[in-house]
């Protein structure tokens, strides 16, 4: 079925792009901790408070206080919150969550691939093998006929008589081919349905649980937590820079206004580009959730059909494959869009 092949091609393309999400868990954290603003301009007000720590350890004496110096803060925050080396809290190393996610996703991809292979009616092209077999059988019968006719020639008197007639030989060869075909058909029809049914009915609960977990990780951890915090840190940094420029003595005194204004516009553009990248990453993650939802819906439908003792019709299978292909295509498009923005 051409649609299954298209799905398989899309699935292979998407497979190479899935790690982009898992790999970004750690990178998003790295970007976030980099957004600790340095002081771009001298200020008339000197900072007097101990500076930020993510867990509110500002007034906590001893080793938990993070340096006031922005660059030192970045290094410390990375160690504590990205690398899981917090002195007081047992936090996971975000570098480990990415590979775990990739492994789980890999099992899902592998499962769906096997399901597609088992369901594919053109699996390993058995029809072509049967055609070759039939042609070979005909060749044998035809050669035998030639041999039989040749033995009847009077010019070769000592030729032994044929022990089997061409008709008998053709019959025997046909019988073997037919029995083989019959057994194969039984195997393919019975076994294929049984394997599909076992996979779908037996795995539905586990498959749905795994898909739910992947969706939970991408939606809650990546989109609503990591990317959201990264965007907030980005906003905070640029707001700080812009406020510092706007309230600077140079700007207030009116000297060099054009230069400061140009700098403000440049900051604003850079801010927007970075926000745009975060938005593209969010859209890619949402497209991934779309793939999970589509897989979940298709699997549930097949589960219900098999549970009712029925076999899915070709139309039902086509509709499921179409929906999954559309979700994969959307994911691939979003991934390409993100790649284009990243290399700009």
């Amino acid at each position, binding site marked *: 079925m051409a649609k299954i092949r298209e799905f398989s091609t899309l699935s292979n393309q998407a497979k190479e792009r899935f790690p982009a999400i898992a790999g970004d868990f750690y990178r998003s954290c790295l970007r976030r901790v980099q957004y600790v603003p340095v002081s771009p301009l001298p200020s008339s007000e000197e*900072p007097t*408070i101990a*500076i*930020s*720590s*993510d867990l*509110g350890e*500002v007034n906590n004496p001893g080793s938990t206080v993070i340096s006031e110096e922005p660059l030192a803060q970045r290094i410390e925050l990375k160690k504590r919150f990205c690398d899981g080396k917090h002195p007081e809290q047992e936090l*996971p190393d975000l570098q480990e*969550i990415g590979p*775990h996610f990739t492994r789980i996703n890999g*099992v*899902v991809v592998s*499962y769906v691939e*096997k399901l597609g*292979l*088992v369901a594919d009616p053109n*699996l*390993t092209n058995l029809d072509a*093998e049967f055609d*070759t*077999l039939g*042609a*070979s059988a005909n*060749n*044998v019968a*035809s*050669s035998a006929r*030639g*041999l039989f006719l040749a033995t009847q*020639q009077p*010019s*070769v008197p000592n*030729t032994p008589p044929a022990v089997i007639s061409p008709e008998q030989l053709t019959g025997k060869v046909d019988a073997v081919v037919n029995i083989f075909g019959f057994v194969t058909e039984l*195997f*393919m029809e019975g076994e*294929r349905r049984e394997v599909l049914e*076992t*996979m779908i009915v*037996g*795995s539905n*609960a586990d*498959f749905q*649980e*795994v898909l739910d*977990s992947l969706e*939970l*990780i991408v939606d809650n*951890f990546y989109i*609503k*937590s*990591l990317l*959201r*915090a990264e965007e*907030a*840190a980005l*906003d*905070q940094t640029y707001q700080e820079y812009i*406020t510092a420029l706007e*309230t600077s003595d140079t700007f207030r005194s009116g000297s060099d206004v054009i230069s400061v204004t140009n700098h403000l516009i440049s900051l604003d553009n850079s801010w927007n580009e970075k926000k745009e990248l975060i938005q593209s990453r969010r859209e890619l993650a949402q497209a991934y959730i779309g793939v999970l939802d589509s897989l979940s819906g298709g699997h549930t439908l097949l589960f219900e059909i098999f549970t009712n003792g029925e076999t899915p019709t070709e139309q039902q299978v086509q509709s499921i494959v179409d929906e999954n292909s559309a979700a994969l295509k959307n994911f691939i498009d979003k991934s390409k869009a993100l790649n284009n923005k990243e290399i700009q």
Partner: protein
Amino acid sequence: MTNIDPFQIPNALMELADDVQNFRVRFGTQLTVNQRRTLNTRENALRGVSVSLSALITHDAIDRITEPLAQLGEAIDEADEFLMAVESLRQALGTIARVLNLASSIITLMTPVTPVG
């Protein structure tokens, strides 16, 4: 006792941080550097706790699906067995086709040659 979705706790902390951020942006230039930094600290603290909590819950969620993953692995193995059986069948068909072709060639070789003239 009310069941609380653990993932809602990080979200609630993020919303609190958003409120702090909105306050800071709203009063922007009216705040002193120190006041802004204090608000930044609070916002960062809330977001930091939220992300850390979310990471912990995620870590836990990964552990919890070990069993369903193993079950899916078994289903993959069963499919593999079937696919290997189909492949064996394909190879057997190919072998028979080749043997028949060979038989055809042998029969042709055995065809008696009639002397000319």
